[in-house]
């Protein structure tokens, strides 16, 4: 709270006007529309609309495709989170040992953050392309017939790798910062007491890193659920047979390609509730960190 303030009543509104105008036109109004549409039924030509109550939501929860999409989203989000955080933690612990070379390694590891998810998708799609890609060629040598256009598992692995690859750099930076914040004296004391590197990691480093880990867990789940749209669209487009049709992709697909506005809006509302829940969790964590 500021003690010294300016006594002006009109000026603050003028200053806020651009932000509030854009927020209202592009955020609050569309969100309101999504909520309104989620309770309406619209015919295929958009001529007649009628109040449908909770029908759209009930329809979704009884819809095998939507339930499948939820399942796919959970598998996808958990895999991306575990893979990218696991690799990032390993690299961060390794960089933490380095004195002189840590800067060079950091530079060489952080740049994928800047690569667009859509481009990341295209790159991995090319590497795993069944006709010209390198990976299917290598996998063929060990006797695995890779084809993400046919196999559901292959398609899921492809989108998980492409999404996790891009997120490693972000997790890495935060893990490195978290590791550097742990006082060296604690680990030194443990070393004097005779604890080896592995023991020190699990008994000292990892527990003290838990605020960072928890924060990254939420960020990565949000990333996997909402920001990987471009990865999916540029690689599998939700296929084959709905195997990679995550919830965010289904909102777009049902709304724009399927033209089922009521159902798409209901899905939007469900996703908004999930985002709000995740944001609340994240903010509660921030409050905790202050006391920590």
């Amino acid at each position: 709270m500021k003690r010294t303030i300016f006594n002006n009543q009109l000026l603050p509104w003028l200053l806020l006007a651009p932000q509030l105008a854009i927020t209202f036109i592009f955020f609050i109004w569309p969100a309101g529309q999504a909520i309104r549409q989620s309770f309406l039924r619209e015919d295929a030509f958009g001529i007649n609309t009628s109040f449908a109550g909770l029908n759209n939501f009930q329809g979704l929860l009884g819809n095998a495709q939507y339930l499948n999409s939820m399942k796919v989203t959970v598998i996808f989000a958990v895999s991306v989170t575990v893979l990218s955080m696991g690799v990032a933690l390993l690299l961060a612990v390794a960089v933490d040992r380095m004195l002189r070379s840590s800067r060079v390694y950091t530079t060489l590891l952080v740049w994928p953050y800047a690569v667009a998810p859509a481009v990341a998708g295209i790159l991995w799609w090319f590497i795993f392309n069944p006709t010209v890609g390198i990976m299917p060629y290598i996998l063929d040598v060990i006797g695995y017939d890779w084809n993400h256009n046919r196999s559901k598992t292959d398609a899921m692995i492809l989108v998980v790798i492409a999404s996790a690859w891009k997120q490693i750099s972000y997790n890495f930076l935060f893990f490195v910062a978290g590791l550097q914040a742990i006082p060296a004296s604690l680990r030194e004391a443990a070393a004097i007491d005779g604890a080896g590197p592995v023991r020190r990691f699990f008994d000292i480093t990892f527990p003290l890193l838990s605020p960072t880990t928890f924060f990254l867990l939420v960020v990565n789940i949000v990333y996997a659920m909402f920001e990987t749209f471009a990865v999916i669209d540029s690689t599998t487009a939700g296929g084959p047979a709905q195997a990679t049709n995550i919830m965010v992709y289904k909102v777009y697909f049902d709304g724009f390609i399927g033209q089922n506005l009521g159902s798409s809006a209901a899905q939007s509302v469900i996703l908004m509730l999930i985002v709000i829940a995740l944001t609340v969790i994240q903010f509660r964590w921030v409050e905790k960190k202050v006391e920590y």
Partner: protein
Amino acid sequence: MIENRPGLTFLAHLVLIAGVLIVALPVWVAFVASTRGATDFMSGTIPMWPGPHLIENYSRMLDTGLSTSGTPPVGLMMFNSLVMALSIAIGKIAISMLSAFAIVYFRFPFRGLAFWCIFITLMLPVEVRIVPSFQVVAGLGLLNSYAGLSLPLIASATATFLFRQVFLTIPDELTEAARIDGAGPMKFFRDILLPLSRTNMAALFVILFIYGWNQYLWPLLITTDAQYYTIVAGIKRMADVVDGLPQWHLVMATAILAMLPPVAVVIGMQRLFVKGLVETEK
């Protein structure tokens, strides 16, 4: 490092080198592909070393593009991406600073409500409210325009919070001194707040530039006129060929060009980038 264990250090180097190689692998493969000719992908063996067509492929894409996919020259798409990324970054910083200034330095009715209105934007990614947002932009006649590409993405709760934090750390004495000297609010803003938050602005700019450049779904939806295609959304249109195989060498050249500007920003301004990344998550 706690104790000297050469074996462990060696292992750490090994892990890091493997990590660097795995992280770089897709880009290397794309780069190699972008230096090859069209026939190199027919043979079934995959080239691992660059070929002789580097300049030819890149200059062809920049000047004329891949006309069969209906996309304009990559040079134009990069220009569109640049306009979009700069408008988003500069626009976000400008409107967030103004609103943070209003919230921190003034007391007015409904201040809390205004703050919450801004906060809500944090919770609603474009992907979630995609259909109604599209209807709003279409209704305003902003399809196929730079305003339509950037305006809906300009509001940002994160940036407003960041500047609020920054302003709160600026000592009250400065404000008092400015007021005693007869400076009005806008003069105070321009002569004291702006210079003091210069590094925060720069750090935020790096993050927002990358964010704007990498937008995909939004430009894909609202641009139907090839003149307004952005490069990230354009690649997908190139890779989607209805009949036959994609022109891999040209698609990959475009992919390399699409990642070049943001990657250069991250590597060139690494310190600001890390600062921006950590600050926006607070």
